[in-house]
């Protein structure tokens, strides 16, 4: 075997081959070992198991040949996860190589590989060399070590904290070498993805990074720019003229040849521009600088163009005048890939104005005659959208559509019909003349949307189309085989036609026929119900029916693809990232971020919400979307509330029975007795509710199904919009919260947490109920459970019953679940339930924070179990103890359970010791005294005890804590209690109370 054909590496591997390779790996000659190792790697690549060769491969590592070493390392990385025991054997080599004196490349290689192994058992051997490498004299080793910290963090966060590696990374931001700085930034960014904010941006760090920026490679620039966009210097910390300076330092990056650098720089500039409120001339001049680089991206590779166009679409929503004269740049080239063409169309629509509309329409007309069907249809749809967007250009758009219809190409005509329907909606009674041409092209209708649209048009203008009845009769003959959308349209259209032509020329027979088919022969409940409603309306009061059915429709507008401002801002902050390509905020598609948000211990950055306000908001929305007059609804609900109070009273007589159930079965028992709570039926369900589609539409013309959806939206945008709603609610909650606080000092609000995920299946396997909840103290100091329920299923949820399991703190619901309670699909409602504490029976104490309380909810959908977390401060007693008693109790502690915690910073609202005490007292953690501790520093002593129940204060659960304020504005807390869990709970609660901003 003198020479080896490289292709042989990939060829067959018989059983004996492994044995042969083992021999070769032990060969004396370096070349032979090298060849053998290459074969091993090749087999690994195609997915074959060569782990049995671990030992012989490992032996090869004892070499000075870097190439060979690299191959061995590659092998080890691949198998370390599955064979951790073997990986440990390689540790010594790494340690040795990491301390290699002469060759920095080998040191770097060792540090890089060590981090990739990711086996917990070898971490002990890894941290010391890593620490040394971070201070290595060679920048290559340092830049590799910086990334290694991020790797270590992924495997074991504790070690990173023990060795203070994060602090070291922050020190590295001042390194003289650009690549070391940028890799440290990249590592910090990565850690922040998991852990949340760790770096507090300051003027010093900002300028360090800005100085490093020109020294960096293209990739380094991207890391730094992305980091700057994610970690904005608070506007308050910038001196006057500072924003301009920051922007000026970023601007040169717009001339970089790497398009990712351009996009990231654009992002940072846009974010800092938000700080400039007054100076519009300055803002405009910066924006003018951004336009040419963005347009140049249109000359890059198609994949980059795609990303760039998706981003530009966001940028011009944010700052419309950046690219307002450059519409021609986005004209489609013949050889552009389809995905680029479709994105360009979106931009063209957005840039359309009265000045450019003529050239734009010519262009779109050309596109509409190309061969790619999807592109043609989107182009025609674009013409329609421009017509709806620009009133004064609508005539010209219609002209173009007219010409297109006359081509008689079937998909062109069909798409034209769909957009013309929308144009009719926007401009009623303006362009009926085109109907004649449409009717002539009827035969070719094989697209569902086109059929439905055509039927809508005939129904709407039935009194002006001579043979409208014949046309609809034609359609009705295939009624049973039509898609639902068409069936609905046909039902609506025949009814409208009947009312319009007053039963002339066979309209009556037609409507009867269609109603019969809809109600008797259809198996679709929506259609059937709608049929019955029409039938009843027509037969009982035709005049009234006319008023309702033929009422004026709300106007539509071309904003289907326009984003909510909050969402837009979030997406602009993510320019160049996947988020901006998907048009989804990161937490909707990144599991890691969702996990972090769900992680309840880290509450620092959470938004704080006021629930009572929010529930009002939700109610208002509910009323609006069903279209019932508010006053009526409120009256009704008050009546319902009254009856409900009566029921409540009768139930209240039996609380002991509720708690009588023993052990964990208690929930089942309670939820089993649904019958004892008579469900109060809401008597005035508005008629519209019978059609679920109506909830989405929100139009007042309840009978026109297709009317309500103005345009075909891209699904991704819809997703964003629905999440926009959540954000909006969150935002409102926050605003109103500040208001309430002005009135009265308050308990710190605990933010909602998702306690039951919509994807979690219940006991019967149903899913779709999502619950967010938090225990709170309300303004009067009462313990309440705030909840937000969301129905993500497709059926309404009603008849809810809820119960908490027995728990250590004796928490139980005081109020039963309100009835009537119906949650329609996609609806969210907030509730506040009063709780009480009865410590009598007790469950096991929690092992670690937070206090988790098992709960169950039984509803029409299913029976769900979940756990509710509670923070200690809501469980505390308002009773203040006397100083003597307290110190007596404390000195009597037989076993001290001490826990310590250091918080590097507190909420900015706590400026001094006094504010600290006030904040704690407000949350029932009381001040005891001030003293000098053993180390000689001034400390505060505070105490608290949980709600006592019948037996009075439980001395075992009193927590006494020593709090010292550190020079950096943080606190050191040492909590003592006879019960270890109380100390832990206390620390968690204090951390939350002190870091929350009210």
């Amino acid at each position, binding site marked *: 075997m003198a020479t080896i054909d490289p292709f042989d590496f990939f060829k067959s591997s018989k059983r004996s081959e492994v044995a042969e390779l083992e021999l070769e790996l032990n060969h004396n000659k370096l070349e032979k070992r090298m060849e053998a190792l290459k074969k091993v790697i090749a087999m690994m690549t195609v997915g074959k198991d060569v782990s049995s060769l671990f030992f012989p491969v490992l032996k090869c590592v004892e070499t000075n040949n870097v190439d060979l070493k690299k*191959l061995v390392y590659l092998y080890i990385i691949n198998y370390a996860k599955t064979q951790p025991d073997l990986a440990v054997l390689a540790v010594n080599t790494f340690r040795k190589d990491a301390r290699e004196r002469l060759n920095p490349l080998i040191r770097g290689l060792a540090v890089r590989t060590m981090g990739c192994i990711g086996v917990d058992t070898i971490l002990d051997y890894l941290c010391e060399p890593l620490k040394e490498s971070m201070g290595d004299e060679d*920048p290559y080793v340092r830049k590799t070590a910086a990334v290694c910290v991020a790797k270590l963090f992924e495997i074991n966060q504790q070690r990173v904290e023990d060795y203070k590696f994060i602090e070291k990374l922050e020190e590295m931001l001042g390194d003289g*070498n650009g690549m070391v700085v940028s890799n440290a930034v990249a590592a910090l960014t990565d850690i922040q993805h998991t852990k949340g904010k760790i770096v507090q941006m300051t003027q010093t760090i900002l300028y360090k990074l800005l100085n490093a920026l020109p020294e960096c490679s293209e990739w380094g620039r991207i890391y730094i720019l992305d980091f700057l966009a994610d970690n904005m210097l608070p506007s308050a910390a910038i001196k006057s003229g500072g924003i301009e300076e920051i922007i000026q330092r970023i601007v040169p990056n717009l001339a970089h*040849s790497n398009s990712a650098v351009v996009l990231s720089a654009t992002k940072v500039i846009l974010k800092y521009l938000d700080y400039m409120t007054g100076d519009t001339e300055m803002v405009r001049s910066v924006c003018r600088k951004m336009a040419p680089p963005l347009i140049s991206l249109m000359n890059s590779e198609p994949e980059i163009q795609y990303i760039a166009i998706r981003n530009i679409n966001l940028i011009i929503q944010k700052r419309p005048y950046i690219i307002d004269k450059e519409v021609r740049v986005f004209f489609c080239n013949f050889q552009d890939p389809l995905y680029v063409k479709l994105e360009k169309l979106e931009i063209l629509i957005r840039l359309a104005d009265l000045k450019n509309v003529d050239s734009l329409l010519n262009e779109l007309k050309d596109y509409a005659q190309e061969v790619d069907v999807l592109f043609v249809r989107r182009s025609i749809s674009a013409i329609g959208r421009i017509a709806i967007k620009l009133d004064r250009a609508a005539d010209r758009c219609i002209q173009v559509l007219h010409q297109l219809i006359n081509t008689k190409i079937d998909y062109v005509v069909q798409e034209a019909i769909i957009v013309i329907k929308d144009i009719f909606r926007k401009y009623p009674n303006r362009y009926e003349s085109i109907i004649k041409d449409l009717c002539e092209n009827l035969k070719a209708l094989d697209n569902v949307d086109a059929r439905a649209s055509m039927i809508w048009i005939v129904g709407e203008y039935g009194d002006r189309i001579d043979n409208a009845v014949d046309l609809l009769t034609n359609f009705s003959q295939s009624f049973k085989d039509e898609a639902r959308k068409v069936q609905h349209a046909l039902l609506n259209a025949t009814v409208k036609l009947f009312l319009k032509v007053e039963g002339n020329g066979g309209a009556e027979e037609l409507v009867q026929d269609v109603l019969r088919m809809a109600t008797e022969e259809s198996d679709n409940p929506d259609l059937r119900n709608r049929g019955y409603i029409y039938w009843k309306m027509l037969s009982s009061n035709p005049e009234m029916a006319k008023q309702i059915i033929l009422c004026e429709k709300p106007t539509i507008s071309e904003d289907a693809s326009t984003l909510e401002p909050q969402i837009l801002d979030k997406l602009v902050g993510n320019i160049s990232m*996947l988020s901006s390509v998907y048009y989804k905020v990161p937490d909707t598609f990144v599991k890691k971020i969702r996990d972090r948000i769900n992680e309840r211990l880290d509450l620092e950055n959470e938004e704080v919400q006021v629930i009572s306000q929010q529930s009002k908001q939700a109610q208002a929305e509910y009323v609006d979307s069903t279209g019932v007059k508010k006053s009526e609804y409120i009256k009704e609900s008050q009546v319902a509330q009254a009856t409900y109070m009566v029921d409540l009273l009768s139930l209240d007589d039996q609380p002991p029975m509720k708690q009588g159930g023993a052990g964990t079965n208690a929930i089942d028992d309670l939820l089993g007795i649904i019958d004892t709570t008579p469900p109060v039926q809401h008597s005035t369900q508005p008629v519209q509710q019978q059609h679920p589609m109506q909830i989405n539409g929100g139009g007042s013309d309840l009978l026109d199904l297709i009317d309500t959806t103005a345009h075909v939206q891209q699904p991704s945008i819809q997703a964003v919009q629905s999440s926009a709603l959540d954000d909006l609610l969150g935002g409102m909650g926050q605003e109103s919260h500040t208001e309430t606080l002005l009135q009265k000092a308050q308990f710190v609000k605990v933010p909602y947490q998702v306690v039951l995920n919509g994807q979690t299946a219940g006991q019967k396997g149903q899913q779709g109920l999502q619950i967010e909840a938090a225990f709170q103290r309300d303004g009067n100091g009462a313990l309440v459970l705030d909840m937000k329920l969301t129905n993500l299923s497709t059926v309404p949820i009603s008849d809810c019953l809820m119960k908490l399991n027995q728990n250590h703190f004796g928490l139980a619901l005081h109020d039963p679940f309100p009835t009537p309670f119906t949650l329609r699909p996609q609806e969210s409602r907030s509730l506040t339930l009063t709780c009480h504490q009865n410590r009598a029976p007790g469950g096991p104490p929690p092992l670690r924070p937070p206090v988790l309380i098992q709960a169950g909810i039984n509803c029409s959908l299913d029976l769900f179990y979940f756990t509710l977390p509670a923070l200690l401060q809501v469980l505390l007693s308002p009773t203040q103890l006397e100083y003597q008693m307290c110190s007596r109790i404390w000195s009597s502690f037989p076993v001290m359970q001490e826990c310590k915690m250091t918080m590097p910073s507190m909420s900015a609202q706590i400026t001094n010791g006094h504010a600290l005490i006030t904040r704690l007292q407000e949350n029932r953690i009381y001040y005891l005294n001030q003293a000098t501790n053993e180390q000689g520093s001034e400390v505060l002593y505070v105490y608290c005890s949980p709600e006592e129940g019948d037996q009075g204060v439980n001395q075992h659960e009193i927590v006494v804590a020593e709090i010292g304020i550190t020079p950096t504005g943080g606190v050191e807390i040492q909590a003592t209690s006879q019960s270890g869990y109380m100390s832990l709970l206390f620390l968690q609660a204090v951390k939350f109370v002190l870091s929350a901003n009210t």
Partner: protein
Amino acid sequence: MASSVVFVNQKGDILIYRRFRDDVSRQEVTNFCNCIVATKAAKETPIINLDGVSFIHTTQNDITLVATTKGNVNAAMLMQFLYALVTLCKAYFTPQGEFSEEQVRKNFALIYELLDEVMDFGLPQILDPDLLKMYITQGGAKTGAGALQNNIEKLKQITIQATGAISWRAEGIRYKRNEVFIDIIENVNVLLSVRGTVLKADVVGQVLVKAQLSGMPECKFGINDKLLIKNADPTKQDRGIQIDDIKFHQCVRLGRFDRDRSITFIPPDGVFELMTYRISENINLPFKVVPVVQEYPELNKLEYSVKLKAIFERTNFASNVVCKVPVPPNSASVKIYSAGAGKAKYEPEQNAIMWRIKKFQGDMEFLMSAEVVITPLKSDKQWSKPPISLDFQVPMFTGSGLRVRYLRIQDKSDYKPTKWIRYITKAGDYNHRI
């Protein structure tokens, strides 16, 4: 950021699979290969999300390169990384510049070694081919790592260069003859409507420099940039050209350019792209096309007459002019009546009449006319009517009017280098709709 980088052939087989993070499994990658690459759906969009995994991909020849992730990563960066990776592979492969499945299979060990160096934990690191060639020698260069290991000074120099501000140039370069060659290459992109109005036109230019200079030369490059001239001397007659946008090689000091629009740099050794620029105002189009296409559907016939006119000075010549006139795919016979110069020929595999003129003198015009008979089709499937496209090269001509004013080179050793400058304008997307 990237969880893994994968090379896949068009059948969906994994050729190279390098994992950088554990969150994306090989199973998920295989799924993408089978569902997207193998079914040719990869052309539909360059970023695909399958079950929570994002696949950022590009296809070069018969290889699809994929970066996978579960996070909210910088998509443009990873896309650029993939392009840079292809460039890097091309620089290493022999013969240079070839990128194919065969080459990837032949060089797999090298690719793994490169991947280890160019990306760490999914973060792009060093992708400069010249630099990497200094210490990654697997397969290719014969100098071997052995020699390098003993040369501590050399090693230090490499690492500092790799991480430092001037990563593109090594110390101690010496040339007997110091020379520098500058090529200004312009691509004219034009889109003309059926009626001959200019829909869009721009020039994308490239300044290629081949530097054979000793030491650490400090260079200053000057062009007839309107803003620069105005800055320097507001009274001067020469108005200069207006550049929409410039992008520079990383060696150019961006801060300096932003301040006073001067282009200063220390060049890499050898050939590099100093800058690219885009100009959209006052463009000199070198050719004018006047097409007339008459359709006679009832006769199943089309008549073409295409006029080509050179609009540059008579003393200058364009070379290799190719005018591609598309005809319907169902053309039965094509009869070419006349071609004023060069040769016109119907090429069925191109569905077009290719009219080639080797040398086209300035200020001349030629006419080509032809008749096409088509076989009628049963379905009324439309002819897509691709635009007439033009290809050409015009030396000593710039569509933008750009001129090099000076290139000043200063080095400690104070040598006087020889400077060569060439201009050439080529057709980019030069399309005229019919």
